[in-house]
């Protein structure tokens, strides 16, 4: 899995209206900055191989 192909600008423009979020031009620009940082973090994280059976940290107890 890779986050390399993720396009923050396209994601913001596509998702904001779908999520019902109205962004000013300033807010759009900063949101793109932060989503770009997120993609960098994801790239680093996704470089770690995880077993299919790896259990997520929070486990619900019924």
């Amino acid at each position: 899995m890779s986050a390399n192909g993720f396009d923050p600008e396209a994601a913001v423009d596509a998702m904001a209206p779908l999520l019902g979020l109205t962004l000013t031009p300033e807010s759009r620009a900063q949101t793109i900055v932060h989503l770009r940082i997120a993609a960098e973090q994801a790239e680093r994280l996704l470089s770690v191989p995880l077993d299919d059976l790896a259990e997520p940290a929070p486990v619900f107890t019924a």
Partner: protein
Amino acid sequence: MSAALVEGTAEAIAAAVRSGAVSAREIAQETLNRIEARNGALGAFTEVTAKRALAKADAIDTARVRGENLGPLAGAPFAVKNLFDVEGLTTRAGSKINRDHPPAKADATMITRLEAAGGVLVGALNMGEYAYDFTGRNVHDGPSRNPHDLGHMTGGSSGGSAAAVAGGLVPIALGSDTNGSIRVPSSFCGLFGLKPTYGRLSRVGTFPFVASLDHVGPLARSAGDLALSYDSMLGRDHGDSAQADRPAPAASPTLNDGIAGLRIARLGGYFARSADPSALSAVDTIAGALKADRVVELAQAEQARSAAYLITMVEGAALHFARLRERAQDFDPEVRDRLIAGTMVPGVWAAQAQKFRRQFRATTLALFRDVDILLAPATPCRAPRLEQTTFVLDGREMLVRPNLGLFTQPISFIGLPVVTAPVWTEGQKLPIGVQIIAAPWREDLALRVAWALERDGVVRAPVATLS
């Protein structure tokens, strides 16, 4: 009453009140006077609970006359980050939006416990909006200011908590720490800060940020006061579903046991890169004093920080989603745009982060089989200037606000207990902190080490002169 008493420890204040050398009312009144005189410069308090404090102090003095047990914090003032519920006050959590909420009907559990131990609540403290902050800036209330140099940041998001303690207004303040919000301001303001193990202290009556990462804990000018307040706050609270059902031994009884026999190592790799020389030199100082020559690696710490970053974005965005849709203009823009970005993070990234979290926990716990304490920088640098938005680390310019937690995030990611201890360098106005990290549920060991360093004069937390 001498300034030395109120600028000293909560332990000393409580001893003086118990002995009758000073009344709880005198301490409370002097504290309120100091808040009045200094808060304008510090931006620490957002609300002062003067009437309540004086009533509580009078009750302590009356109890003393009756010969009752006054508790370990008898008459010691404390204050809380304004995400803690205080009965009768609106819990603003650093925001404008939450000011529309009705006043809290009850105190947060941690306030109830500190008052049961004799503590006197004097008010609520400034913080970064919704705790999504490492700077101490707040667009609604103004910034908290570093008492040791008012042009510099306190760090955040428990910025008011650090300003109040380092500024000599209270000996103990409560903060919260999701990714470093106790440890970063403790580092910048030269304080001892305790982020307990995840699930140790109750969060009931606090406004959340990232449920799977949120902790609460104290900041103080002495490791002894950290232990005293921590002990007073221990105990099961079924209202917090994340709280662990396990024994919670007090830390104070073993505080003086020293460091003999403890296996102490410093963290290398990730924790020795991307830092200003001041941060690494502070670790050298502490490692030298503890004779900790060993260096160990916390494998995949960088990925741990990334995973914590993504979980924070997603959980934070989920918490505030309705508010982002309906009242975006009422957020601090610096916070809002990070939260909006969080709504757009692909779910697979967050799910992978939670899977990696369990794997990283297992790797790290294995490290604790042959080490008791790990040392690491708390922040990559000393406190930046208040208006500073970027800094350079490892030759790369980065945003200040999201990156001051580089070294705290991998540790809280898996809930390890940490005491931040303050190191001062001759000729420098500002301190910098070192993380003393223990295995889960071993707050007692981290506190023991911090206390040994304090007793030997290696670390200290003086009240600022506000010159």
